[in-house]
C-alpha cells in the first residue's frame, strides 16, 4: 500500500514556533511533506494539530520559524506569491465550512469565479464534476448546507477544496463525526482521489482506521514538536509512552487487524 513517493518536498517546515500568551504550542518543529504522499498528522487533544495546519496555509502567523510551501516562503511571500500558492492548495475544514447562504453547487463554483473568462456553462459543469468526484449524488448540488448531513457537508467541503485541481489538499479531521461506513467510504475516496489526481494530502486525524487505510506516512505531534515521522511500521518501533499507547493500544490493534483482514481477502 505504500506508494513510491518521489522524495520532492512540497512543504518544508523549519523551527516553527507558535505561542499564545504564555502557552507554547509548537517549539522548534520540523516537518517535510513530499509530493504525492498522504501524510497523517496525529497527536493528543491540544497538541496543536489544527494550529499546525493553520500556520502552514497561512491562516495563523507563526511566532517564529519558516514555512516553505511549493517553494514559496510563506512568511515573507508577496501578494502574488500567496495567490500562486492559494490557487494550488485546497483546504477542507472540519465541518466543511460551507457558505450557508449558497447551495452546495454555488459553494463549489466560488473558486471558479476567480477565473477570468470562464463561461457559465463550464463553471456549472465543472462544479457538478467536482461534486460527483467527492462522491455526492447530483441532487445534493441544489441543496443548502443546512439541509445536508455531517458526512455530506464534509464531502461538499472536499468538492470545494478540489475545485481548482490543487496540488496539495489539507484535510482537518475528515472522518470525525461520521459513522463507520461513511468514514470508510471517505477513506477510500481520499485514497482514490490522491491516486487519480496525484494529490499530496496533509491529513489531521484522530481516526486510527483512517491512518491505517490511507496514510503513506505518519507524523506524531507531541512535546510541542514532531516527535517522529515515518511509516506505520516505524511507529511500532518507537519507544515513547504516548506513541506506544497510541499505536499499540487496543483500538489500534483492532484497526490494524481489520486492515490485515481486508488485505488478506483482497
Amino acid at each position, binding site marked *: 500500500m505504500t506508494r513510491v513517493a*518521489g522524495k520532492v518536498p512540497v512543504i518544508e517546515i523549519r523551527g516553527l514556533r507558535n505561542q499564545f500568551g504564555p502557552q507554547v504550542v509548537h517549539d522548534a518543529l520540523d516537518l517535510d511533506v513530499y509530493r504525492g504522499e498522504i501524510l497523517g498528522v496525529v497527536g493528543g487533544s491540544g497538541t496543536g494539530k489544527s494550529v499546525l495546519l493553520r500556520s502552514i496555509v497561512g491562516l495563523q502567523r507563526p511566532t517564529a520559524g519558516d514555512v516553505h510551501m511549493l517553494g514559496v516562503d510563506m512568511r515573507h511571500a508577496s501578494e502574488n506569491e500567496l495567490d500562486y500558492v492559494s490557487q494550488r492548495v485546497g483546504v477542507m475544514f472540519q465541518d466543511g465550512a460551507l457558505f*450557508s*447562504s449558497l447551495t452546495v453547487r454555488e459553494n463549489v463554483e466560488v473558486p*471558479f469565479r476567480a*477565473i*477570468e*473568462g*470562464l*463561461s457559465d456553462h*463550464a463553471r*456549472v*459543469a*465543472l462544479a*457538478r*464534476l*467536482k461534486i*460527483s*468526484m467527492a462522491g455526492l449524488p*447530483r441532487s445534493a448540488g441544489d441543496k443548502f*448546507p*443546512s439541509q445536508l448531513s455531517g458526512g455530506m457537508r464534509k464531502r461538499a467541503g472536499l468538492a470545494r477544496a478540489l475545485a*481548482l*485541481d490543487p*496540488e496539495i489538499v489539507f484535510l482537518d479531521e475528515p472522518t470525525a463525526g461520521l459513522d463507520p461506513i461513511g468514514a470508510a467510504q471517505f477513506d477510500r475516496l481520499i485514497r482514490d482521489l490522491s491516486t*487519480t*489526481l*496525484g494529490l499530496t494530502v496533509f491529513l489531521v486525524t484522530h481516526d486510527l482506521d483512517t491512518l491505517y487505510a490511507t496514510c503513506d506516512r505518519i507524523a506524531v505531534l507531541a512535546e510541542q514538536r514532531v516527535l517522529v515521522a515515518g511509516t506505520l511500521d516505524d511507529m511500532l518501533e518507537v519507544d515513547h509512552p504516548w506513541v506506544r499507547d497510541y499505536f499499540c493500544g487496543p483500538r489500534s490493534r483492532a484497526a490494524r487487524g481489520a486492515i490485515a483482514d481486508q488485505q488478506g481477502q483482497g
Partner: protein
Amino acid sequence: MASEPHSSREGSVRTEDGDGVTYVFFSGTLGLRDLPDLEHTFATLPERDALSLDLSDVDQIDSSIAWAIIDRRRLAEAAGETAEVIVHDPAIADFLSTVEADIPRTQDQPRVPFSLQDRVAGIGEAVATLGTGLASFAEVLGLFLSRLVQGIVRPREFRLTALAYHCEAVGLHAVPIVALMSFLIGIVLAFQGASQLRQFGAEVYVVDLIAISVLRELGILLTAIIVAGRTASAFTAAIGSMKMREEIDAMRTLGLDPGHALVVPRVLALVLMMPILGLIANLSGLFGGLLMSWIDLGISPALFVTRLIDGTDLSNVFVGLSKAPVFAVLIGVIGCQAGFSVGNNAESLGRKTSQAVVTAIFAVILADALFSIFYQELGL
C-alpha cells in the same frame, strides 16, 4: 494533475481544417487558466463531418481541460459527427476515463419561470406565516404568564439572580442612551415649537407643548423604540444561540423549564425597568426643553417649572407611563419568541434577530396608536 511535469512547457491549442475533418492539436501543460481560450476555440470550430482531438503532444492536463474535451466530444457525437480523441500517454488516458466516469450524465432540468400561481401561493404563504407568528407569540406570552404565576405561588422556582442580572442589562445599561436621546428630543421640541409659537407671540405655550408631547407620547414611545432595538435583539441572539447549540433541549432533559429559566427573568426585568426608563426619559426630555427655552426664548427655569405644574395635567404622566408595562411585555415576548424560532444555522439567527427588532418596533407603535384611541374615548 495527471502526471508528473516533465518540463513546464506552456500549453497551446492549434486547429487545422483538413478535408472534411477538423483537427485540434493540444500540447504542453494545460490547466483551468487555459479553459476560457479553449472554450472559445471549441465554439468557433467549423462544422465538419469529423472531429479529431489530438492529445499526443500533451504533458499534463487538469480535470477542467479533461472535462472540456469530453464535453466537446459528446457534443459532436450528439450532432451526428464522428469524434475521436487521440492519446498516447497512458496516464492521461486513465485520467480522461476517470473524469469521464465522474461527469454526471443527466441533463439539467430547465428552470420554470415565476408563474402567477407561484405569486398567489407566495402571498398565501406569507399570510399563513403571519398566522403562525401570532400563534407562537401567544404561546410565549402564555408561557411567560403561567410561569410568572407559578413563580409567585412557588417562590422557590423563581430566579432572582437572573432577574437582577437582566434588570441591570436592560435597565441600568440603557439609562445613558435613553436619557441622552430624550434630552435631545426635548431640545428639538423647544426649538421647533418656539419658532412656530413666536409668530403668534405665544412663546410661553412652548412649555405646554413640551410637557404634553414628552410626558404623554414621546418619552415612553422613544424609550420603547430604543429598548426594542437593543433588548429585543439581545434576547433573540441569546436564546437563539442557545437553541442552535441545543442548550435548550439539554435544559429540558435536565428537568429545567426554559420558561422559568429564560423567559420570566427577561420579560419581567423589562416590565420592571421600562417604567423607570420612561420616567428618566420624561425628566431628561423636560430638562432639555427647559434648557432650550431658557437659552432661546428667555423663559427662566422658575417660570418653566411654574408653568409646567400649573398648565399640565398630572394625568399626562400616568397616561404616558401606563403604556410602559405593555410595551415591555410586547418587546420581551417578541424577542424571546424569535429566539425560540431560530433554526440550527447561523443564518437564521441573524435573520430572526433583525426580524425581532422590526416586529417589536412595529408592535410598539401599533400599541401606541391603540392607546391613543383608547384614552381619547376615555376622555383622558
